[in-house]
């Protein structure tokens, strides 16, 4: 909300401040299986965002009275490192982090076959090491890959992206400069790509109905792009693990 920013031309000749097209994602890099002690894990870079996700479980839900005899519980923890933001974040989890954890966990629940693991908890931890807008969707995308890496059976991989409005224009995947624009609207969205079921959807800002319709369409397309990157990363990790296995066998 800086005065100078008001004079920025956020979209000029179809290009944005960082040179991207209207519906272009920032560069995304996904590494699978990066945390040895976790059951599943993922390191994800999304533009400047840097995220570690790990999954532990299904494991016995404790204390016992929280157990659900019909299904597993999903416990999602989204946290930002103190140094991951321009002004140091307090080490205590804030209300924003708690809300993001809640809606992200609910988004994953639809994807997982929870009824297979009664009385257990599936703990998903997402740690933001560096940030530049869009960490909640990046974190959710990373968590979903970590779940797959943990071998937890899922209907589909949750794909997520931010879509929004800036200077009257609907654009995909806002970065921090864009998000800080005076009239910016941010819409995190997550779907099960195969069925286009919407599992996470939030928004704040001043948005007209026709803008929303455009944004929804762009968001779903964006999710599908992220989905392809998630699948590629998982496939690559699977092939590498297989290769390693073969090397070991041959060594015998």
């Amino acid at each position: 909300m800086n005065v100078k920013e008001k004079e920025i031309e956020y979209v000029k000749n179809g290009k944005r401040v960082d040179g991207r097209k209207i519906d272009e994602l920032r560069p995304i890099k996904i590494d699978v299986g990066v945390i040895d002690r976790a059951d599943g894990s993922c390191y994800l870079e999304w533009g400047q965002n840097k995220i570690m996700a790990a999954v532990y479980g299904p494991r016995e839900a404790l204390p016992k009275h929280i157990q659900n005899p019909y299904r597993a519980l999903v416990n999602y923890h989204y946290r930002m490192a103190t140094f991951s933001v321009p002004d140091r974040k307090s080490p205590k989890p804030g209300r924003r982090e708690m809300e993001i954890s809640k809606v992200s966990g609910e988004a994953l629940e639809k994807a997982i076959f929870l009824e297979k693991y009664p009385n257990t908890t599936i703990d998903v931890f997402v740690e933001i090491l560096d940030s530049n807008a869009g960490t909640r969707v990046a974190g959710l995308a990373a968590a979903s890959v970590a779940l797959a890496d943990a071998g937890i059976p899922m209907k589909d991989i949750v794909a997520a992206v931010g879509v929004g409005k800036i200077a009257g224009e609907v654009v995909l995947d806002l970065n921090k400069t864009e998000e800080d624009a005076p009239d910016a609207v941010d819409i995190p969205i997550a779907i099960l790509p195969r069925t286009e079921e919407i599992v996470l959807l939030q928004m704040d800002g001043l948005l007209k109905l026709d803008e929303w319709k455009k944004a929804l369409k762009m968001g779903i397309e964006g999710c599908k792009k992220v989905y392809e990157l998630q699948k590629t990363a998982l496939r690559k990790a699977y092939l590498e693990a297989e290769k390693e296995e073969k090397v070991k066998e041959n060594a015998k």
Partner: protein
Amino acid sequence: MQSDASLELRTDRIREMITQGNRFDSRKLDEYRKIEIIKNISENAEGSARVKLGKTDVVAGVKLIVGTPYPDNPDEGTISIGAEFLPIASPFFEAGPPKIGETELARVVDRGIRESKCIDFKKLCITENEKVWIAFVDIYTINDDGNLFDASSIAALSALLEAKVPKIEDDKIVKGEYTGKLHLARKPLLCTTYKIGGKLVSDPTFVEAQGMDARFSVATTEDNYLTAFQKGGSGSFSPKEIDECIDLSFRHGKAIRNLL
């Protein structure tokens, strides 16, 4: 008191009914319960309101406090919305530190209001760089018979619409004197649609809400803006369902706005 013993059984039955388009209390699926708004329920509050949505009952109150502006916005006051699920309202609510349900509700109501830009924060500046008004809106549940989100949104907006700005003399608040009302440029209202038994349902009772798969809250304004979304619950919505929810929110928002 309603017996919670047979809750699960009733939930199944109500779900079935809803799938067939029927509701226990004969309402249509997209019909709200009777809404009652009682203003100024606390003289100590700068503004306050109690909202009944059928048997659901919440109160909200506004206190204006002199505080320091954020360094980034030295000439702007601010607003802070909190919610507490008082244990008087339900056998399932407990006293203690804020739980995630309270935090989510408060933050969603907050976004609906804040992002509508209905409050001119520059008007809440007393002395640039030094003193600004902080408007604390606190929402408390009195009875939880479902749909606390919408009841809370109505209560918070009603309390803000009533709120008066205290008079300041020699850098101190003059108790009991006011310089006028807090002006609101828009009236953003949050309306939530629940997905129960495959159907979209408005304003569910507590028992109905037990059977929900997912909910979708949409804040709208009289000048046809969307100002906040929040999807909750472990279920999902199709893009088409989302569009229906938004239509319902515009329609109900308009109707409720007429009661303010």
